[in-house]
């Protein structure tokens, strides 16, 4: 394989990401868009910040260059919406752990399933990839 043969076309590479059902890929565009959501969430890695956040979420959020939409989604723990606004799950995980919430539980809230149904699905082997590989191909 030569370097030329293996080189990916960046536009085709990125376009394919939009063809996966129910999935948001954390591209550089999303990393830019969600920069402050992620930096805010990351700040909760420090115990002193967790304490201030827990004492007054709204005041803590006001310290960050976030829009009203961002702040509302954060306070609602609307993870699908946060991911659509450029949030990344590993950063958002800091909010989840500060809440003392079980991670599987938080993930299940993005699926439209109840925690119990989601957990049962995982115990039975997880979500099948059949039918959710490609929007275009329907596979």
């Amino acid at each position, binding site marked *: 394989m030569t370097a030329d043969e293996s080189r*990916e076309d960046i536009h085709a590479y990125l376009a394919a990401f939009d063809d996966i059902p*129910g*999935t948001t890929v*954390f*591209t550089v565009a999303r990393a830019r868009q969600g920069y402050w959501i992620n930096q805010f969430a990351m700040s909760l890695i420090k115990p002193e910040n967790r304490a201030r956040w827990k004492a007054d979420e709204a005041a803590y959020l006001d310290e960050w260059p976030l829009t009203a939409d961002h702040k509302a989604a954060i306070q609602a723990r609307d993870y699908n919406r946060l991911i659509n606004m450029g949030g990344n799950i590993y950063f958002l995980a800091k909010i989840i752990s500060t809440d003392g919430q079980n*991670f599987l539980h938080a*993930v299940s809230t993005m699926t*439209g399933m109840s925690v119990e149904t989601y957990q049962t699905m*995982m115990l039975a082997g997880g979500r099948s*990839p059949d039918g959710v590989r490609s929007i275009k191909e329907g596979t």
Partner: protein
Amino acid sequence: MARITAGVGTSHVPAIGAAIDLGKTQEPYWQPVLAGYDWSRNWIRDEKPDVVILVFNDHATAFDMKIIPTFAIGCAESFKPADEGWGPRPVPTVQGHPDLAWHIAQSCILDEFDMTIINEMDVDHGLTVPLSLLFGQPDAWPVKVIPLAVNVVTYPPPSGNRCWMLGEAIRRAVESFPGDLKVQIWGTGGMSHQLQGPRAGLINAAWDNRFLDMMSQDSQRLRAIPHIEYLRETGTEGIEMVMWLIMRGALGPDVRQLHRHYHVPASNTAVGHLVLEPVR
């Protein structure tokens, strides 16, 4: 001369670390996850490696969005277990091997891999869970560890082929290190899992098992798997499996599979584990 004597692949699911820390390993949920590591714990006790080059990814712990290194090698004397939002895991501080780490860094850079050098880094579950899986709960880890952090969070991560080639460069670097060291390389992360969006919970056992097969049987096909295939078939976080290819590339053309384990689920994730040895 230092030499790479074995490769280990393993998932690094944080919930497994929590299960070990909280003494839940005999619970029916966790017992079959952990049972697949019994063989490996005995094996590594006999093997007694001096150093493990531990390929993992940082999950928004040491690196925030300010700096996103593609390949970062930890050259410090030691690395503390990180506070990921619920306090640090109660596991020993990780002792580095700065002499070998700096040697690998300079060798790889001369070998046209532009490594980022890290002299201060707390290490998250990506690094400490594999250590717990292989060594249990000792007072001190019985090996020195060289952390090699790979960006698999912000796209694009490195290609599988690039990871493979870095593995080859690491092997050349290790073999040019003066001093008789037994070095293992571990690739961690995966297997299939998706932690976000309506498709969360995706698991693809058939694909994962083909990947495990290819690690010892069809490795040239393995290195050509494009990112989009990992995404479609194994979920957004399944991409972590490219890190296994650094380990595999470092073992040379042929390997023997010594041990294999696969289990679904651990939390949202499929657990995979391999022990490989190079065939010379």
